[in-house]
């Protein structure tokens, strides 16, 4: 598995998508910052300590990052078939399941790193605006929240990435599905029950964006683990399909 991860990391260095996802994260942070300057409904939102870190997280999760993470994962998987390198890899021989697992693992790490980068940018913004109003507890709370969000969002979108691996070359569909899937979270967040069971809003609940009960958190965690389980099942089916 180590060698798979090493090889994937080597490939990633040449991947322009990596830079683009970082650019997307910086873009989100910049745009929420611009939105926070609005004075239409009273003083600018940015004047309130913690507003920037609080608001960037759900908007990034509901509108941009799940699609970006799904695109990154599906692109890494689809490019082998698209660039015609899969045939050579299978000749080596390389286990396709292990290869896909390595790609999924990297996407998982990348998902966490993207959220941590978003945290770093928003924290920097908050520190520049009002460093004295920030407490260590508050910063640590947000760090934990963003970290958990990175893990949970990956679990939430993992079935889509796995489905793409199964279908091959359907990365467009993955992107559209991931965007609709995350966008629907806007509406499921309005209902307490749906918020707990819908993976995207469940991720926000576990991360601590919503105030939830312990039971709801357990239920949300189970839903996200089920998402992870579904993606494992799909990946296993991928292997069986090859064996047949």
């Amino acid at each position: 598995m180590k060698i798979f991860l090493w090889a994937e990391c080597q490939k990633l260095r040449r991947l322009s998508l990596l830079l683009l996802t970082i650019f997307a994260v910086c873009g989100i942070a910049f745009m929420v910052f611009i939105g926070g300057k609005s004075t239409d409904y009273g003083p600018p939102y940015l004047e309130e300590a913690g507003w920037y870190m609080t608001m960037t997280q759900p908007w990034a999760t509901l509108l941009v990052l799940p699609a970006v993470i799904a695109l990154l994962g599906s692109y890494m998987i689809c490019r082998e078939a698209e660039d015609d390198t899969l045939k050579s890899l299978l000749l080596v021989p390389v286990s396709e399941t292990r290869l896909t697992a390595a790609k999924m693992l990297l996407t998982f790490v990348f998902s966490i790193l993207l959220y941590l980068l978003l945290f770093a940018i928003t924290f920097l913004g908050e520190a520049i605006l009002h460093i004295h109003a920030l407490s260590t507890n508050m910063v640590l709370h947000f760090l934990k929240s963003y970290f958990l969000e990175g893990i949970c969002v990956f679990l939430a979108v993992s079935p889509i990435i796995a489905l793409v691996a199964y279908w091959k070359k359907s990365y467009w569909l993955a992107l559209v599905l991931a965007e609709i899937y995350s966008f629907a979270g806007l509406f499921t967040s309005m209902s307490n029950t749906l918020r707990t069971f819908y993976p995207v809003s469940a991720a926000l609940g576990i991360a601590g964006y919503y105030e939830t009960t312990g039971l709801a958190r357990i239920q949300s965690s189970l839903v996200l683990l089920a998402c992870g389980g579904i993606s494992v099942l799909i990946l296993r089916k991928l292997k069986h399909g090859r064996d047949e």
Partner: protein
Amino acid sequence: MLKLIQTEFWKLRRKSLFWLMLLTALLMPFFAVIYFRSFGKTDLDPLLFYKWSAFGYTVFMILPFILGIVCTILMHEENQAHVLKQLWIIPIPKTACFFSKFFIVLMYSFCFMLITAAASVLFGIASGCAPFQWESILFLLKKCLEIAVLSACSILPILAAAVSQKGYVLPVCIILLYIFFGFFILPVNLYVHPIASLSAILAREGKIPGLTLTQTISVPWALLCIGIWGTASVFFATISLKRKG
């Protein structure tokens, strides 16, 4: 030009995802029903229901996203199959090629908004949320056609970005940021981003309940914003295509 457009339509027959994406037009009417039913609200002002089903997130998020994907698919598949090279050999004017793609986007936008309008009326009546009213339906239809044209024009920068790139990754990232930027710039300045300007044009009569903008609405400024972005995009796309040729 007409032949180019006809060829573009022929090519679409092979793109199943292209047609499947039209189903997303049902998304907001469906969510609007869920939203109002979850609060136990029925027999609403039809315009309030249509604001949710057709004039809200459909305009700011769903339609621009789908049109952006359409633009990227149209250009990416041409690049991937090296069709553009063959088109330049014929030769075909580069701007004509760009506008034939834009025409497809415009038609797609019309289809999308007509489906949204039809679904809004049907879902509204079937769920009991919005009673049947000719006046409201005609208003919905008029606004949907307006949104279709303006959205297609607002998405020109994405089409230009897709034209300038061989891959699909950058245009896709740009779509997400472009929409996100439009959404967040809305309360700050209406005349910086085409999607924000679109909402200013949409809310100009003040008839849509809940769609109130705190800034002064100026339709000429909004049109100017969309026009500047559109012209710059056409200019940029023409240069990119010339470089490619």
